[in-house]
């Protein structure tokens, strides 16, 4: 009989071991899944996890996809630590893209070097404004931020659809639901010639370091952690929960908005009806896999970005549906949550007393 028994103190090894264990289990389950579908497990796992990054172009694509994931996840993680469940990063990303895109389309013939910084600011503000709605509704009316931020995601994507079918549609685009292409001044400078990797990746890296400093060295970072761990203690210490709610949502929204701006001014180069393959949702997985820690998130983002590339490779090579990416990502989060039990509990063989089911 196997029992689960609480540990006297949380296991330090398992804090870092659980994500690795989860990744391992996901690989095993993935291989079994491919096997069950009649594909060679070794070949398909190679195609999924190794082939996509076996050349330098693949690596630049990996960093390109990890950029929005990192940005969204760093912002979300701050909220998750403070028990603020913003799951609408996808919508905030979309609104950031819309704000930046509207500027790029309006001044598409501008050659000013100011255009790009203005677009970045617009992107941040767009995401920020969208996240401010659930923050206001939560602090003022106690409305659950999970549901409001998610509903706003649907509203944002419909708004994008409206814009590219109406006011922002390319007048010379044969009625395709797309905006015109951004001018050169509205596109992110490339980091590696011949790839799609742009300087947004460096900015994301810088933000990871900044977030690390804020969470570990500043009072507000400390307050967020205390509110999340022991709301009661935070209350006695006089930390304002409303301030934490506003802070985490605005930060999460702003970073998601920036990620949206990077996508439209980077690899996409225009506004389209769909601009993200669910980066805002996947960032939730990235945040947990990275232990809600900025540096951990960076590593997790690279791994999850690989699942996007791997999904594309097996789609091309084995004609498996692209949705296999989502299956992998879901499994990863399941295994991670399950493995996390090892941090505070341990499995014991035999029963000291009657095991209670």
């Amino acid at each position: 009989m196997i029992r689960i028994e609480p540990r006297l103190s949380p296991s330090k090894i398992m804090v870092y071991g659980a994500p690795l264990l989860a990744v391992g289990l996901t690989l095993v389950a993935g291989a079994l899944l491919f096997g069950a579908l009649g594909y060679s497990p070794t070949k398909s796992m190679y195609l999924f996890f190794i082939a996509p990054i076996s050349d330098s172009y693949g690596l630049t694509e990996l960093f390109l996809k990890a950029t929005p994931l990192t940005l969204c996840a760093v912002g979300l993680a701050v909220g998750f630590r403070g028990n603020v469940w913003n799951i609408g990063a996808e919508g905030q990303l979309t609104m950031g893209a819309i704000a930046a895109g509207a500027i790029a389309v309006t001044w598409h013939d501008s050659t000013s070097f100011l255009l790009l910084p203005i677009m970045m600011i617009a992107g941040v503000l767009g995401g920020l404004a969208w996240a401010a709605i659930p923050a206001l509704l939560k602090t003022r009316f106690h409305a659950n931020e999970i549901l409001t931020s998610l509903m706003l995601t649907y509203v944002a994507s419909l708004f994008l659809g409206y814009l590219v079918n109406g006011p922002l549609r390319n007048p010379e685009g044969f009625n395709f639901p797309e905006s015109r292409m951004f001018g050169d001044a509205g596109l992110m400078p490339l980091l590696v010639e011949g790839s799609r990797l742009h300087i947004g990746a460096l900015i994301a890296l810088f933000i990871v370091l900044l977030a690390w400093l804020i969470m570990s060295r500043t009072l507000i970072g400390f307050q967020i952690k205390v509110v999340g761990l022991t709301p009661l203690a935070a209350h006695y210490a006089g930390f304002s929960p409303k301030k934490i709610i506003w802070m985490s949502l605005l930060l999460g929204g702003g970073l998601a908005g920036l990620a949206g701006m990077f996508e439209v001014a980077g690899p996409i180069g225009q506004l389209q009806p769909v601009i993200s393959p669910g980066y805002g949702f996947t960032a939730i997985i990235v945040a947990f896999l990275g232990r809600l820690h900025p540096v951990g998130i960076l590593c997790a983002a690279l791994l999850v970005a690989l699942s996007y590339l791997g999904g594309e490779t097996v789609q091309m090579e084995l004609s498996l549906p692209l949705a296999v990416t989502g299956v992998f990502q879901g499994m990863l989060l399941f295994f991670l949550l399950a493995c996390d039990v090892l941090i505070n509990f341990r499995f014991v063989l035999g029963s000291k007393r009657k095991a209670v089911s």
Partner: protein
Amino acid sequence: MIGFEVETLIAILLGVARGATPLVFAAIGELITEKSGVLNLGVEGMMLVGAVSGFITVVVTGSPVLGFFAAMLAGALLSSLFAVLVLFLHTNQVASGLSLTIFGIGLSAFFGLGYIGTPIKGLQAIHIPGLSEIAIIGPLVFGHDIMVYLAFVLVAATAWFLGKSRWGMILRAVGESHHAAHAIGYPVVAIRFAAILFGGAMCGLAGAYISLIYTPMWAENMTAGRGWIALALVVFATWKPGRALIGAYLFGGVTILQLNVQSLGVDVSAHLMNMLPYIATILVLVLISRDETKIRLNAPACLGKPFRADG
């Protein structure tokens, strides 16, 4: 002319029932789960998995009845994954529910890929000779598909179960105070497991209603946030089955309004009209949550809290 308008009105009202029915099933399922003290945010994922398994079953067997049963089974199976995580491994319920939704979206898209665009024969409305032919009242009262009536039966049964039956009271006790319920000797974990499975089955059924009756086809993400609207409905209903029914019909009305505004000659972008149900959900949440004590008095006291028998 007037006859035409009456017919349009009847069609709209029938549409309201079709829009509301999946919300009723999903909201009642989640309501029971939450009454036992467990918050499962995986409704959307379970609905999608129900939708795809129901659809595939109908394509293969041709039987809508089997389709609905397969959907319930699939929803319950998926929810059992969540149950094991939160009940035995004590994982965070919010995070586990979210991962259930992400997993369900991926899983349903994966298995449904070969079935996009496959036509099926949707379940027809029942026809009772005589009764269905009564003017106006006939089609409105007797002209729906059988699931619409089952949804009403489910609401009545749930209200009776929670309010009057012994096991319903035990379920509520578990949701209000799991330690007290455990001390008296009730199997807290087993009851929650059953409540989660029931929630999963109902969400699966709700999904199948969408893929078999509401729009008889399969498309990725076709539930379009209805799972989240159902979650909001449970809050709106302050955990009371009858109010969930009313809420679902209000939302069904909003959905149908959005579909019919253009046919009534109002020139608004379809994209903007489609925002209505989501904006309505936010407004309703704000209105109901404004009064914090009301929510606190009605929400199960142990909602979202993990339980360990020896802890």
